């Protein structure tokens, strides 16, 4: 079982914090706006602290999930299929046979480029839920993986994968 590069936690934490900041900013801003203006005459005093508490709580949850995700994430190139284990709350174990691989992408978001990481996305002809992506790979590993998936997919050959 292969694990992701530990650095991927930086990416996930960064994303989690950014999202939490946006969401928290929205609800705290709304709460402040409601108390300052006269839209809601009798706004209770707890409104702003409650909004802050919710925002902080959600931010903590996001950070926890982002941190924990690394511990759960595993993948393995087996003989006939790719095996992936992931998910903090809903634990998902996916088996994708190489025969079914339609194409393989490698992808680098700005945040991933700054941390020197890459993501490999594997597409099948199935429904959305069976397209899988493997984040947190070093660029060389991502290239290797893409290459070997391509070879394995060709090797297993056969039908037109539908």
């Amino acid at each position, binding site marked *: 079982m292969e694990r992701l590069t530990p650095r991927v936690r930086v990416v996930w934490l960064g994303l989690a914090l950014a999202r939490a900041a946006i969401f928290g900013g929205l609800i705290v801003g709304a709460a402040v706006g409601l108390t300052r203006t006269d839209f809601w005459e009798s706004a209770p005093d707890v409104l702003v602290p409650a909004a802050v508490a919710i925002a902080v709580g959600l931010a903590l949850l996001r950070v926890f999930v982002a941190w924990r995700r690394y511990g759960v994430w595993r993948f393995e190139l087996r003989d006939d299929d790719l095996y992936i284990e992931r998910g903090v*709350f*809903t*634990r998902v174990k996916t088996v994708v046979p190489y025969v079914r691989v339609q194409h393989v992408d490698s992808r680098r978001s700005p945040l991933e480029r700054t941390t020197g990481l890459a993501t490999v996305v594997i597409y099948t*002809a199935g429904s959305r839920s069976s397209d899988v992506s493997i984040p947190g790979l070093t660029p060389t590993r991502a290239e290797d993986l893409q290459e070997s998936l391509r070879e394995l997919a060709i090797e297993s050959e056969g039908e037109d994968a*539908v």
Partner: protein
Amino acid sequence: MKTLHPASVAVRSLSRSLNTGFLFFVVGIVASPGGNGTDLLSVFGLVAIGIVVGIVYEFAYYRRFRYELTGDTFDVTSGVLARRDRELPLGRIQNVDIRQNVVGRVLGIAAVHIETAGGGQTEVSLQYVAEAEAHRLRRQLRRGGSAPGAESADERARDADTEDEFEPTADEDVLFEIRPHELAILSVFTIDPGASLLGGIALSFASGLDPMALVPTDRFAWLPGPESGLFALAWGILLFLLAAWLISAALTFTRYYGFRLTRADDELYYERGLLQRYSGTIPLEKVQTLTISESIPFRWFGYAALSVETAGYAPGQSDSRGTESAIPLADADRVGELARAIEPFGPTDLESPPNRARERYAVRYLLVVAGLVGLAYALARYTSVVNRWYVLAAFAVVVPFAAHLKWSSRGYRIDDRYFLTRTGFWRRTTKVVPYYRVQAVIHSATIFQRRRRLASVTADTASSATLLGRAATAYDVDSDRGLEMQADIEERLQDRLRARQRQRTADRWVRDSSDTTDDDSAVENDDVQ
């Protein structure tokens, strides 16, 4: 290169000019000068321009549109402003559908839609060609598709040309024809989602756009104030439901009138429709999943429906509803028989999920009841709408039964060649997935499932109808058993693929050694996916 039927210019520009005319009508209304009074002349002028533009466009479209059936592709050249050349390999075609509306039936023209896997919408639409041409195309497209590389391209093209006039009725056997009482039951009990909207529109027109006109206010004027309001509301809802039901029955009746399913060697062919005729082919070798569904009123009468999914229709494609259904309604036994004729799966006695799953559903429903009671309490506490909030707790009595029903309607089976799953009490759906169609196997356990060591195993296929979690999923199986199932399905998939590969090599060897290419082209169904 062939062109569309000339009458298609008229039909297409009729529908097009209705659109553009309406658009220009709106533009005219909005943009017309003169403040409050709209200038009729300029509005009608704009509408006329819209109609002329529509007709000119459609004429150009007709002049530009060319299609051709070559030995192994179907080529379409089209486009007025942006040009497009499209080549469809015949072996990749999933479905061919023919649609005819009332106008088309009068003029003897039909629309042909060709679907392949992938892509967000119908790959090729021929709107419109002559009726006979449509049926000829359907036959040839399928014939070309089922024997790739078996004959040389020239041979097949020549073949196709000489056989133009012959309907191959001899080898078609009728699998299913809807009987009048089946059609009646189907019409009465089907709820068409579009019908409620139509019902609402019809009602609002009937009432002259004044909803109160339909309420016989004088009848219950004796009731005290608030009650009469409630009664009027109930009356309105009743009228609405009645209208929606009538329209839905009429729609379903016309949709499935004369439903007929036939089988000609390796494909199914359906026809249906009273006013609009629909027909099309479902190639058996492209079948991804079989779904047998028994909704609650139909199950009471012992009826079931069967749908056959191919990878052709994109998910969420609006008009694909119904086209993929093989049998709208029939005796459950007949449906089982027919499904087994398509995919010979074994008995459907399924393994139930463990008892822990039933507890889980009970707890879940109890939580829902508790939530409702809590909500009612909050309403009673802060408003005066609700008085006796605790009455809702009586629902708790139903919980054990509901949990049991949900549990007992779920099950799965790992057959020799098929993976079977069943779920749903109100609409019990049994899915049959051949192992060699499986795209990915997903074992997932939510945080609540893990508490009870349960998991759901999904065998994903390339079916079109996987929206809203309609993939074949065995819900709430034992977690370890789920892992076993996952490995098992994957292993059987590889086995089946190897078997088919062997079959194919053997076929090829036979074909190469003996030069009788014409004969084994028909038998070699296994070749294409």
